[in-house]
């Protein structure tokens, strides 16, 4: 009798676990935003430097490249822009409450989807090794409707302890920026493969 009970308990446990797993696997995902799925080409504008305090030297074009490569992983077509377009100089506050008139002047006239990225901070420091931190904020606008269709933040951390880590300090800012670029676009959907 005791044996039957113990086997019964084990069977119940296994059934429960499998049931929970199956439920979790079948939990309905929220469908991706159709506005994001309709994107054909994203014009990535030059990085807006929104840093405060002491500013470490950083290659902003490289940051633009990191974000573009993260977008390509999500199968978005991208183009790197070298100017902000007719709006001229832009600060982050302009993007936060951007009105349609302003949005329509962002980036090249022929582009429909434009992404503006603000660099919030990037720093590296030497400790018992070295570490790097980076913060990015991204805004994706649809110029046709003049509205903000996506906004996200991406934080990146990098670091290595010990003497090896100390020797790697120079690479920490880049590694942190790369991680921030990747994390920035995490909330964007992955587009289906072409032809599917």
């Amino acid at each position, binding site marked *: 009798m005791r*044996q039957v009970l*113990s*086997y019964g308990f*084990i069977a119940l*446990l*296994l059934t429960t*676990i499998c049931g*929970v*797993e199956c439920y*979790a696997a079948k939990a309905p995902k929220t469908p991706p935003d159709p506005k994001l799925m309709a994107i054909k080409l994203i014009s990535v504008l030059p990085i807006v430097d929104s840093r*405060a*305090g*002491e500013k470490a030297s950083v290659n902003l074009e490289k940051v633009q490249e990191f974000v573009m490569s993260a977008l390509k992983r999500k199968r978005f077509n991208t183009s790197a822009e070298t100017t902000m377009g007719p709006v001229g100089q832009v*600060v982050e*506050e302009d993007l936060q409450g951007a009105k349609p008139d302003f949005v329509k002047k962002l980036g090249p006239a022929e582009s429909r989807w434009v992404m503006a990225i603000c660099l*919030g*901070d990037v*720093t590296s*420091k030497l*400790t*018992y*090794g070295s*570490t790097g*931190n980076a*913060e990015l904020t991204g805004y994706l606008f649809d110029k046709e409707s003049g509205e903000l269709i996506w*906004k996200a*933040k*991406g*934080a990146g*951390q*990098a*670091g*290595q*302890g*010990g003497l*090896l*880590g100390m020797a790697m300090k120079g690479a920490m800012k880049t590694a942190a920026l790369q991680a921030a670029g990747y*994390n920035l676009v*995490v*909330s964007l959907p992955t587009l289906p493969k072409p032809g599917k």
Partner: protein
Amino acid sequence: MKLRIHTRLGVLGLTLALCAALGAASQTPARDAQSAQQPPAPAPEANPVPPEPAAPPAPKPAGPNAASVPAGLRVIVLQPVLRFEDVRSDSLLPRLAAAEAEYANALLDAARNATGSKATIVETDKLEPAGAEACAQLRELGSRLARGNVNDDATAALGRLAALDERYAVLVQFFRLRTGPGASWNSWNGAITSSMASTLMQSALISCRTGKVIWKGERLVRNKALRPAHPDFQKALNLVYQDFDVK
């Protein structure tokens, strides 16, 4: 009998191992997704990486933007603009935001102490309705004004104040407290990270007549989300105003 006990123990052990493996498999992606999207817990207090020492203050005087100051400057100290946010999302930090009044009072006291000996302070509640309205508009633009970025909307509001009294100048303060992933050490691969928390204090004195920045000060403390009672908070605030001048 012994064999039966061993068999049962074996089955139980196998079941537990299976449970652990299934649990780990189901938790890993969920944890990844959470770290990417969920608001994080406040930065842990235990800090294996020592926080970065406060950076030296940024150069203060407004330089070429410095405006000519009319004699007997009257400074309107605006209510500071405070922001408590997470470095990974737009989520607010209610626990810290609850102390908003405490932060605001500390910032206002520092601004008043710095200004008091050098100019006359005008309280916003004693302004005419048109002046109070202009101040409210300027406060909305606080985050950009506090770093000396004066746009057209701000120029218009400053103009309305100047129309009331040419000697008016506004002192705008912006405070931002960010939290994020804390410091960490991975004992398996030796990877370390520093806390992403930071505390930013910015302040600018802007002439209403010319719309130009008379003075500005800024202090960014990385790796720390400072509370008003923390000694470093007051230290940082003192450094913002250390070379405050109305000339």
